[in-house]
């Protein structure tokens, strides 16, 4: 069973930077919980991970794992697993030796090590790759080896830094539910750091949105998706039609093509001209500029009934259920 991770008022300042990279971050990942820290590059999320792992000393604040204050404990005594963004595989060792490293540190006997390595490699889809040289691996393969290496010692806390960065879409779609199942079965606490919202939403029990060193919202994926706290979070989640007070979900915007010659005002809806269309299979993203020049709106429409084209004149209707007003801070 995994251990709870509690980070309390973490501040990290680097020399030469006037603002702290991590500015008072507090959160809790319960035992067995999968938490994703979502944020743009440079927001400090990797630094938080490195502090939890023990690779970076915080300027102030504490890290408690499993109830023990480990803020001052060196990295090799913390019992966490870390998967690096750039993989950081040992170039002078082959795949099997990389994966078994943590097991060697735990002084597991050879037979047990070998079995575990085979087990973990199978998990990440690289069964039988023990003797391959690291230099011959593709980016995705290296990522999987890095993951296997972090998983092999069955750490009570697993830290993942952009785990699916180099992995192609198909493989990711396959790995995500597999890993989700694995984490639940092991009960490992997972803290995942990513800039990709679909990854975070898919894998996590709770998502923490982080910008400029601070956590701006923490919520389960569904709630985050339904009720983003601020325009910042909304934009980061990929929503369009975001203003300072409210947002309109793109799929709540309906478009009806108007035949030229129709008189306006028939239904009371606003009129606009289609400026851009991005075809996405079943759906399409359509960017419509209002006819009266008062702005624009993005709509996500089904393509079943045909596709609008750039230049079409459309009537825009907004389903009020798709409107969300940001809570007052």
């Amino acid at each position: 069973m995994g251990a709870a991770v509690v980070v309390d008022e973490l501040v990290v300042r680097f020399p030469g930077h006037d603002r702290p990279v991590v500015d008072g971050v507090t959160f809790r990942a319960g035992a067995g919980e999968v938490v994703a820290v979502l944020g743009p590059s440079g927001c400090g999320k990797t630094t938080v991970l490195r502090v939890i792992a023990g690779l970076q000393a915080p300027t102030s604040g504490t890290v408690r794992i499993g109830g023990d204050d480990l803020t001052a404990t060196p990295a090799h005594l913390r019992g966490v697993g870390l998967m690096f963004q750039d993989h950081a595989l040992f170039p002078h060792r082959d795949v099997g030796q990389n994966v078994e490293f943590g097991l060697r540190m735990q002084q597991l006997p050879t037979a047990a090590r070998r079995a575990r390595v085979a087990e973990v490699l199978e998990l990440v889809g690289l069964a039988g790759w023990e003797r391959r040289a690291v230099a011959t691996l593709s980016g995705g393969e290296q990522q999987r080896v890095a993951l296997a290496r972090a998983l092999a010692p069955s750490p009570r806390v697993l830290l993942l830094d952009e785990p699916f960065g180099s992995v192609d879409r198909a493989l990711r779609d396959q790995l995500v539910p597999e890993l989700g199942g694995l984490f639940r079965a092991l009960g490992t606490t997972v803290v995942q750091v990513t800039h990709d919202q679909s990854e975070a939403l898919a894998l996590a029990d709770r998502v923490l949105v982080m910008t400029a060193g601070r956590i701006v919202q923490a919520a389960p994926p569904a709630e985050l998706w339904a009720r983003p706290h601020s325009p910042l979070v909304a934009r980061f989640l990929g929503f369009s039609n975001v203003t300072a007070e409210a947002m309109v979900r793109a799929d709540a915007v309906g478009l009806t093509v108007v035949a030229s010659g129709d008189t306006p005002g028939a239904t009371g809806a606003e009129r606009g001209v289609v400026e851009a269309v991005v075809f996405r299979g079943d759906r399409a993203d359509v960017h419509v500029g209002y006819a009266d020049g008062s702005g624009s709106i993005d709509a996500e429409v089904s393509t079943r009934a045909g596709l609008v084209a750039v230049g079409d004149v459309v009537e825009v209707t907004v389903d009020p259920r798709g409107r969300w007003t940001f809570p007052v801070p």
Partner: protein
Amino acid sequence: MTLRARWGLLAVPLAFLGVFFVWPVVAIVGRGLRPDGAWDLSPIGDVVTDPVIRQVAWFTLWQAVLSTVLTLVVGLPGAALFARYSFAGKRVIWAALVVPFVLPTVVVGIAFLGVIGPSGSLGVDLSGTVWAILLAHLFFNYAVVVRTVGGFWASLDAGPVEAAEVLGASPRRAFREVTWPLLRPAVAAAASIVFLFTFTSFGVVLILGGVRNRTLEVEIFDQTARFLRLDVAAGLAVVQLVFVVVALAWFARTQQRRAVPLRPAAAATNASPVRGWRARSFVAANLLVMTLLLVVPLATLVTRSLRAPDGGWSAQYYRALSTNPRGSTAFVPPVDAIANSLAFAAVATVLAVVLGGLAAWGIAGRGGGGGWQWIDAGLMVPLGTSAVTVGFGFLLALARPPLDLRDSLWLVPIAHAVVAMPFVIRLLVPALRAIEPGLREAAAVMGASPARVWREVDLPLVGRALAAAAGFAFAVSLGEFGATVFLAQVDRPTLPVAIYRFLSRPGPDQFGQAMALSTVLMLLTVMVVLIIDRVRPPGTVEF
């Protein structure tokens, strides 16, 4: 890289060494082994069976091995210091490490004997013992280990080490399992250079070793330059060459096995400020070693340059440097000495870096078959060949048109470049090998022409190694290594020559000015090396 391309790169460096190293050596050895036109290899046999020579050869070997080991043991922690920590004065100290390299041996002898000598501050007289030789070798070669290994270490990717620590390896374990295997090419490179230098050590052994400790190089010098017994000298030179080739072959094998591609990371992220008592004591211990080893002997020189005969402090010797009371031809205006030294060193550095760079590139390239480590080893031979042999070889080989260069000033930087080139190659090859091929491929795919790939990918990544190599080449030239000591040249004195001139005459003003000029040489070295360390191709990361 195709085989053709690799040979193309090596063509010019090989031709250079062929004309300015192989030919002179063959000429002088030939003179000894072919006295009347017929080859007579018996001197080699005589030399090998002579018990005295055997003793000398054995001594040469074990003192070189011990010196190398000692320098590694003391120097590697120093390398760690510079690779992992940032502290005040780091840049200046890094540059100042090169100073011992540059000082004439007789001055080092004075400095050293001020510490370990009969009336030295250490209290025990080590002069004339093998300990004096070992310590002096450490003094000279500390910079080689620290700057070579330290530079490489600073560029090592910190990721794998951190991964090892998180996986449960204590810092010591992580070093043993991850850092050390990755560091080995650089350590082997440094060790090979130190070994070659100490194996062919001449001045140190002569001055500090006393009458009883003699190396092959000292014997060769006596036989060549004093007794003109060219047959015996040739025999000795061949023996020395065999030793060197065997040693280089051994090093070559270790090199090939350890070449592992890395992604050199920014040194700035690797060097952290000093925190915690453990780190502090490590830094302090190393700085103490450097102080005792380097600062104390050199400080003797500086204090002596400022001490007037009546015991008080005075800058009279510095003032006296530019005066020529006797209107002597032997007088060297300090500005002239500095200018000559700098000019020769600049030319020698350019030659060594360009030629060494071409060669390193050809050796380190991938593709075109194996066996390149032998070429690599072969190019190192000049570093391990008797300087007096090469010098006297110049007199014989380069003695008639179209290559009568005996009087040419070009011969000085050329002789220096012959010694400096192996240095450059030794430092660049591990760095070039460490460039991930993917980076080059990525650039090429993005449309970069081969020249552009070289400029945008290779050059920035080896920038640090290149700067280190240039610094060494400069120091080698400034310190008058190699054959120039044995050339008869039109009077164009450099700083070491000017210093030596003072010391070959009696009198307090002569001694004082020698000390003053040595101090000038030290300061000049630090300044220039600081500049070289700063000059980096755009795109390279800051130290």
